[in-house]
């Protein structure tokens, strides 16, 4: 079992193992996931299912590396599951940092804000190397539109469906 991972996830997101059970398996998250703009075929639901089944998620899972924190999955998910936060917790427990996170953090450190040219400079090599150039326009869009989402509150109040006071 992956006690460590669950501790990290609970601390960061407030989700417990059973909270992932509400996932319907509809794979809507996969249909909208930004990572699929780049290297197709990640399914965020996979991660939830692994966690729910008590399996370890290991560091070579593509999403753990590439999740952009765009929250597209969360916004489209019928249950609003905060997958990027789960992934951030996983990264923490696996002591990983994605290329983008490094770039964003660097940018914040130097400029005090997200400065796109700097981010492109830092991530450009990675994008080029992986053949992602054609997605550049989309990336600009995501960075300008979705980043504020990405750094919004790390809610830790209760599970994913407590809005109606139900368990």
């Amino acid at each position, binding site marked *: 079992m992956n006690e460590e991972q669950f501790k990290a996830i609970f601390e960061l997101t407030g989700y417990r193992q059973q909270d992932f059970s509400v996932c319907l398996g*509809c794979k809507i998250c996969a249909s909208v996931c930004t990572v699929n703009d780049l290297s197709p075929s990640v399914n965020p639901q996979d991660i939830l299912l692994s966690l729910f089944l008590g399996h370890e998620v290991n560091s070579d899972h593509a999403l753990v590396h590439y999740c952009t924190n765009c929250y597209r999955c969360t916004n489209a998910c019928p249950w609003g599951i905060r997958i990027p936060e789960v992934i951030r917790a996983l990264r923490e427990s696996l002591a990983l940092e994605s290329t983008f996170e490094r770039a964003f953090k660097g940018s914040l450190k130097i400029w005090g804000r997200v400065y796109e040219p700097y981010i492109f400079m830092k991530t450009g090599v990675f994008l080029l190397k992986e053949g992602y150039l054609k997605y550049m326009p989309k990336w600009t869009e995501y960075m300008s539109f979705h980043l504020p989402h990405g750094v919004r509150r790390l809610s830790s109040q209760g599970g994913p469906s407590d809005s109606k006071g139900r368990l």
Partner: protein
Amino acid sequence: MNILVIGGGISGISAAKVALRGGHDVTVIECTSEPGGLMARIANCRVGFKTFFDEITDKPRLTVIRDARIAKVEKRENIFTIILEDGQSIRADRVIVAAGLSPYDPVEYKGKRVLTSLEYDAVIDQRNGDLPADFEKIGFFLCVGSRSKEYPLCSSVCCSYTLREVKWTLQRAKPEITVFYNDLRFFGQEFLMEKAYRDAGVRFVRANSRYFEEDDDGVTVRYFAGGDLKEERFNYVVLAIGLRPSPELERLSGLFGFSRDQFGFAVEKEPLKTDAEGVYVAGGSIEPMSIKDAILTGFGAAVRAVGDGGRHLSEPLEGKVYTEIPADLPDIDKSHASYLFYLGTEDPWMKMFYEYVSGRFIALARELRLLGKTVCVVSRNMVVPSYGEIEYEKARREGVVFLHLEEEDSITFLENEARIARKDRETVLAIDKVIRFDDYLRLFDGKDFLIQFRSEPQLRWSPTKWSREKYHTGFIRYPRAERWARREFYGALGEILLDVEEERVLPEVSEDRCSGCGSCKDACPHDAIEMEMREQQVALFGPNVVSGASIAHVKEGSCVGCGLCAATCPSHVISYPM
């Protein structure tokens, strides 16, 4: 007695019918300009509603008030006085709330080519002229606005109506059709329709999507299936929108003092009766339901409303109601550590039991889970409509693991393990005890389930009638959640009441044109058609030759007048006087 029906949808009109037949004065108030509700908004249901409504429009004891909005309600000595916004006042002894359902509006996804089912229905409506020129590839997406955090119920009807939209589409054109689903929640014969459409090339994919990128010529859709992200173009995308309680219900509950549950539907204190004295409820105000169930609950609510006044229905009526208590699944040995329920079958006839068995499996799985067992349910199709979805959600939260098989996935059972083969990988589950859907079909052997013959709309709606002497309710009508059995009982009483005085209309066979093909005989669920030999004199050239030819004959004793034979006859030899 004065009965007030709020809502002129199919459930309200059904209630009005039964109350009128019982000799009561009925007022129906409808807040729009014309009764009909949702049914009137669906091209292929409009006529059905009109025919149904026309049967009572000329009754002197019926008053229909259009564009009516209630301003105030007073209740004194068990008599309601309802004052409308235009000042009219209505006195009523009993009130039946039939305010119906409200379709979800997915504003965030809609576009010119991303349509809701209602918008799509207008596109394929004959009356609106030709289909669009580019009508080659259509994708249907189920569960939009249902089964979510905001509205956790399943809307019950959107899978079924999507199947009908597929049918209506194919009646007009031959586009490529794909249905993207989470679970296919069909009922009764719809599973046979599903099979027929699959055979005809309609594709079903167990995956959903919200990636719809629309441009001038089509919509790009992404979905994740078979372990891969797929991207496809469709000319049109249809969102099967869910049905939520009418927003009016909140106001009505304030005015009449009945309670609603956390999802917004009226609470039934007893079947079809709210917790406010003298206020009854029917149709979509209770939960999301199909037209047939709306009729059933409409009939039932009226029976309750007029019956509670002291005038009880006579014994002979109740004597015609037939029900059966189901045998439960055999006891499960609870000594194992892990259990796997497999909910899947290949036999389309058996799929109509999905709903009943899904419910039973969930209950059993939860029971075992509470004992600390490892419990897994592998499903091809979890049929838990409406509030059933809540039980399903509870089971998931309690730690029952649900694994969904995609179309191409297969499962094999070996000793103490189950293997799920997917395109990209194999999952092996160590399991002590496997409980399979097919193992339980014995329960249903040799029984005459009404719905086996009757889930498609017919010329006449008869939600419980098996024959004029026998009306099926509960398990033997259609195996489903228990809460339905009592509603069906009252619904059946209403239907019997309507039938009692009704002139029975028999189908007529124009014998001289009958070719003796026997289609009607096969179609008749009541064995009411026999093929009789008729001597025919054939004189071509030379002497007369006598030969035998068969023609259809309707046996009066067994015919219930359902009209299926007339609908089936390929040469319209059987007519059914409406």
